């Protein structure tokens, strides 16, 4: 898990009390229902957990506006906080907008190990309308890959195939 004392860009977060720390750890351990290899902290969609009196308030942001996993994630966070002994409240925040830059370095590595190529920066540029993004195969590392489809099994992924090891794979789209 990422160090709870800094956000993905390395900014120091204010020190947490013992209770807050425990609540954060409970929420941060929730895994993504579509990609169980990564936690919501790895993905950077858990924006924080603060104590409001006796209530643990978790702020969660969706990856995509219409992501159908949002409800499942919010429920899982609520359950995790309750199991850790807190009265939970989950707030949905959309600002600042989530981008793939919020995925932690650890999260990117977990994605790759799971067989999903992590996002390549700046691949969503409009100027790259017909330019291909260089995506490395998560299995063999080859850059000889080709896009099969812009849209994969979930909103956040595209389908690719490797021309070297001939395996198809998911690519976590850069937004």
């Amino acid at each position, binding site marked *: 898990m990422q160090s709870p004392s800094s956000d993905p860009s390395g900014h120091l977060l204010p020190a947490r009390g013992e209770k807050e720390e425990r609540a954060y750890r409970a929420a941060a351990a929730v895994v993504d229902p579509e990609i169980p290899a990564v936690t919501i902290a790895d993905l950077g969609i858990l924006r924080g957990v603060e104590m409001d009196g006796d209530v643990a308030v978790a702020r969660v942001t*969706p990856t*995509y*506006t*219409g*992501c*159908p996993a949002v409800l499942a994630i919010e429920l899982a966070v609520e359950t995790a906080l309750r199991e850790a002994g807190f009265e939970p409240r989950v707030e949905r925040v*959309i*600002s*600042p*907008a*989530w*981008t793939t830059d919020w995925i932690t370095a650890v999260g990117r590595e977990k994605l790759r190990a799971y067989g999903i190529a992590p996002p390549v920066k700046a691949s*969503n540029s*409009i100027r790259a*309308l*017909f330019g291909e993004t260089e995506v490395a195969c998560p299995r063999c590392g080859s850059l000889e890959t080709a896009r*099969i*489809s*812009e*849209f*994969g*099994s979930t*909103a956040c992924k595209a*389908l690719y195939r490797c021309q070297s090891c001939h395996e198809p794979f998911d690519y976590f*789209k850069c*937004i």
Partner: protein
Amino acid sequence: MAAAPSIAPSISGETLTAFLLRLADDHLVLGHRLSEWCGHAPMLEEDLAMPNMALDLIGQARSLYQYAGEVEGKGRDEDQIAYVRREREYVNCLMAERQNGDFAHTMLRQFYFAALMLPLWQAMMTSTDERLAGIAAKAEKEVAYHIRHAGEWVVRLGDGTEESTRRMKAAVEALAPYVDELFESDDVTRAVAEAGIAPDPSTLRPAFDAIVGPVFAEAGLEWVETPYGQTGGRQGRHGEALGFLLAELQYMQRTYPGMTW
């Protein structure tokens, strides 16, 4: 329900609600149209792509309906706004409700709408309305994918086989009367623009042309001038197609009012 949101003092809640409903209706109606392709697309990848894009659009519509309901302050939530308004209360642009036609037709319609929304969302990222700026910052990233995806198909089909070229040309012809309505301005759009909430659509035409032009050039397509454009969607005057769409969209809530699952 949340407390009434604080909106810019320079605009009335009524005008802002009217603006939000137009934008939300565009997204819900077009999102529903795309979802109709689920299970019918010409290939598996597109069968995934269309519902994916539909999810983006419906997700954006939900954010906008929620906000519209709060600004309106009559206690309506997103479901009530979407499911129990009548056809004449819908204020989407006519292009969004056009029937899917063939795949070329659907892709061109998607491309046009995305080419309108990209500059609109981009401008709204610095909106004086913070809630909308937040929605725009997310949507802008999503719509960029729609442009890429639909734009590639416009080129592939326009510059493809004799048959695909014929169909894409027919789509350009068929949708031509519905383009100008996208850029119409009226009291609502002007008030919203003056309050710095969103640009007036009439100012977005050059940005739209700058996206569509190069794709048309690569696809070997020519712009079709239409003698007169169709209009009326923003006033609730729709084509026959919308009634059938709403009948399907609203069926469950009409039959079992207030149902949840």
